[in-house]
């Protein structure tokens, strides 16, 4: 899926992309209270500490909902529609929205969520049904 267009992300998204590794999952974790969080933020949402660090995170999660995108504001997705995305509750705590990689996702399916780099400045989340 490296054909995805490069999106303009935040400073934090670019910082993450520099550290992420294909097939692994790198998210922010608080050095002080241990909470893993998403989307990317400047300070820990729980203890407000400046201790967020990019950390290798468990890829396991469960699908919350799954939908099929037919209409998009971006020509890339319009050309490739329909396109399935899903929301996932990660075992590590946070919820993410991810591209559904293999087969039709349904709520309750156990999945793995991992990073895939797009160009040099961006990295997206992919969800794949666990074998």
């Amino acid at each position, binding site marked *: 899926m490296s054909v995805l267009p490069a999106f303009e992300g935040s400073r934090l998204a670019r910082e993450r992309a520099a550290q992420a590794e294909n097939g692994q999952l790198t998210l922010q974790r608080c050095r002080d209270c241990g909470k893993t969080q998403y*989307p990317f933020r400047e300070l820990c949402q729980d203890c407000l500490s400046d201790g967020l660090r990019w950390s290798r995170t468990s890829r396991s999660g469960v699908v919350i909902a799954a*939908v099929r*995108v037919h209409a*998009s504001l971006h020509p890339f997705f319009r050309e490739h529609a329909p396109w399935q995305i899903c929301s996932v509750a990660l075992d590590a705590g946070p919820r993410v*929205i991810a591209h559904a990689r293999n087969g039709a996702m349904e709520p309750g399916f156990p999945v793995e969520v991992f990073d895939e780099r797009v160009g040099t400045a961006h990295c997206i989340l992919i969800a794949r049904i666990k074998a």
Partner: protein
Amino acid sequence: MRTGQARGYGGVAITQPYTEPYVRRSEKGAPWFIGRTLAGVLQNSGVPKSAVDGLVVTSMSLAPDSAPSVAEHFGLSLRWLESVPCGGASGIIALQRAARAVQAGDAEVVACIAGDAAAKDSFADLVSRFSRFSIDAVWPYGAAGPNAVFALITDAYMRRYDVGREDFGRLCIEQRENARANPLALLRDPLNLADYLAARPIVEPLHLYDCVMPCAGGEGFLVLGEEHAARLGLRHVRVRGIIERHNAYPSDPVQLRGGWAQDRDALYEQAGAGPEDIDFIETYDDYPVISFMQLEDLGFCEKGGAGEFVRSHSAVVGQGGLPHNTGGGQLSMGQAGYAGGYLGLVEALRQLLGRSAGRQVEEAGLGLVSGFGYVNFDRGLCTSACILERAS
């Protein structure tokens, strides 16, 4: 968690509801729609522009300007100025701020104004840069704007509560029926279930008629003291209760309830009334699933019961059910940016003042309006609701 009961809103009058007619596309800027709306609320009010000493501004397309710019654009010298950027919850929150300012004597006449532009491609630009979280964590997953998030919510809701598309369709169709008598609605052609079900998919399970149509327009009203309104000979509406909540239930995996569920007891307690006393309701209908949630969370039916509720209570004015989105809602009027967050309130004011020709709820005495907005990541963060009463 309950906190102390809010003080009442005695002595406060709301009046002069005005809708600046919506247009699908316009090259005019947000100040045009804000200024025309201000002119509209002042028209025939007896209040000269120079007597407006308080202003609430709500707009998503006003950048690079903000509320102080509006004062200079329209020659207002204000002693009280507020900006309410809470998306679809904004109208009720603007009313709350304005009512308290009038009660405290911080302002005498507050104009609450929402207006938004709709230049070509502006919607895509606004949506793509909506929030830090959406830039990083929603946009790269299909670039579908709020449709993607609401499709995820709708999918989860339909499965959890065994609700079908035809249940949402019933509400959309009945709202369209109400819109037929509303000259302000952009979409007035009748809608039937076959057309609703056959519409093209947007983000499944959402299809065309589940999604609001972006447009330009404005909504506004005046807030002032009741005695002042009486001196001016302005008929008015009173506030019986207001609630708001931001970031309710943050650990729910998916948004199947909103802040109304947390605060509705406080609302009904303030109002000294319950759902059974409400003559009509205006919910925030960016997507029908959100209206369903409001019916449930505001106590008109049990959680998960909105599908059954809409089957047994017609939303159409004059059919003996519970008149709901009496002007057609945003699904029929269009969504003029954050002015959509004032639309239900402005329509409720018209109803309570007896100015909803062709769709007037008979003996409308008590109306409930609710708001919902600001999808920062995977849910709407802001909820609000108010109960309004016709002044006898």
